[in-house]
């Protein structure tokens, strides 16, 4: 079942125009800039945060062994914080992505307008 909205997008494509023109259009550039501003720092952050785990596990064993509460140590709490990090970042991205969807829709509108 293809979304009826997608069908109409498909039709727009049949209109002849240059992809390079779309790629350099202001609406598309805005979309890409917006995505870059969010995605590049997000990817760098989660990779760095994740690789702290094996790095600490390898080179900072005494830090990992520090007791936090009863038998539970810092290493365990830090591993759990990774779960929170993943869910938090996923949630943040979904909020941002709704915004990107609207910007993508603007690009599609522009393509339609330009082709006719």
């Amino acid at each position, binding site marked *: *079942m*293809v*979304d009826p909205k*997608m069908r109409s*997008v*498909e039709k*727009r*494509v049949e209109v002849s125009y*240059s*992809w*390079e023109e*779309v*790629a350099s259009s202001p609406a*598309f550039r805005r*979309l*890409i800039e917006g*995505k870059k501003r969010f*995605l590049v720092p*997000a*990817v760098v952050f*989660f*990779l760095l945060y*994740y*690789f702290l*785990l*094996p*790095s*600490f*596990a*390898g*080179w900072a*064993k005494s830090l*990992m*062994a520090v007791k936090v*509460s*009863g*038998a*539970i*140590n810092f*290493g*365990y709490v830090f*591993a*759990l914080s*990774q*779960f929170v*990090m*993943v*869910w938090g*970042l*996923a949630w943040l*991205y*979904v909020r941002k*992505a709704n915004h990107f*969807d609207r910007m*993508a829709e603007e*690009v*599609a509108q522009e*393509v339609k307008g330009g082709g006719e």
Partner: protein
Amino acid sequence: MNSAFILFGIIVLITLAITYWASRRTRTTSEFYAAGRSLTGWQNGLAISGDYMSAASFLGISGMIALSGYDGFMYSVGWLVAYLTVLLIVAEPLRNSGKYTMADVVSFRFSPAPVRSMAALSTLVISTFYMIAQMVGAGGLIHLLLGLDYTMAILIIGVLMVLYVVFGGMLATTWVQIVKAVLLMGGTIVISFLVLMNFHFSVGEMFQAVVDKYGPSYLEPGLRFKNPIDQISLGLALVLGTAGLPHILIRFYTVPTAKEARKSVVWATVIIGAFYLMTTFLGFGAAALVGKNEILKLDKGGNMAAPLLAQHLGGDFLMAFIAAVAFATILAVVAGLTIAASSAFAHDFYSNVIRRGQATESEQVRVARYTSLVVGVAAIALGILARNWNVAYMVALAFAVAASANVPVLIFSLFWKRFNTAGAVTGMAVGLISSLVLVFISPAVMDAKSAIFPLQNPGVVSIPLGFLAAWLGTYVQPAEKDSHRRFAELFVRSQTGIGAE
């Protein structure tokens, strides 16, 4: 043991009923490879979870946590963080610009024959590695529970998975994965609850029991991984590898839009995360309540920790239930792998390379079905040959190959304008060959003393090599004619969804 037979039988009947239902709805290539793009984000999220939480996650990780404590849990973390790579980098562009396989995207800008052939090859290799791990888990499990011969067990799994895929295609495979995800989450919640009940619902008390039995080192890193570089290497393979796993990537084509693809990854992240949190209870529960020696007695890889824990907590019936769930897990995952492998061969190699896009719909579906049959037979044979390995560990190697061969080329294709055919082919070839060779000369395959390559996991070397080869290969060949226009088209389409099917 009778209850085990009955529960296994019920699961087999349910999945065969699904296959029968799906087989009547599977005629076109889009239906066979992509379930007619009819799934919602939520359904696909469950199916991705079902596809991903394999025997490696369920049996392998619980065993690894039971035997090596903290180091086992690090697998859980890496496997979850991997979903950020999928969510942020590949899922939506892939859905926007491809039809059925990763190669659709990678070959979009380039000369299709060499790129598709290479991508099909890497998909087949990765799926095979992954599949062997599942088969080994299945064989051991059924042998343990039903007393059936290991070979017989592998035959049963192999025949069932071929039935699902040949007759039911992606739709049957998806629903088998959804049913299994629900069963697995249910079973894991029940065991976790019972484990916690044993410790008066205090996680601290459970950890204390483990420390009392095995000492504080059990909750600290270092029991399994002695070499920090090895850990980084494994982490890299886990975090990047998921984004290159063919059976996960094809799941994004079963939804109609990029927005649904995104929703499905988010749902998968929630479900998989919750599951991996509970692996703590499975693993430490098994260590504290069943004991290491008992686990090792049955299986050196530790793969039987979860079923043994179930038996300890709920007797033979719960053990039979958990074993039946593990069996469903393996069926679902091997079916997903079979479909990934057969789409790679039938869609990428047969239809687009051999027949140059001239094959009719029915011919393509027929070839895809034959391919599934061949893949099934190969999986049975290889499953019989490989035994006594920890399944989580073998799957981690498949991740390393995926991260080295597929991920660099996928990322460059989507985001780098200058990238070309030569770069794509050399990137995939070097990533594939280097990761495989490094595995074969590592302590994973050779014995620890004579191993030429010191690390357990090749990722830290082979992933950068994959990127480097893709980059260097690009400069061997001048920029391709039309390449700017084709990049502009792929880039606009992948980022906006304009023209997506």
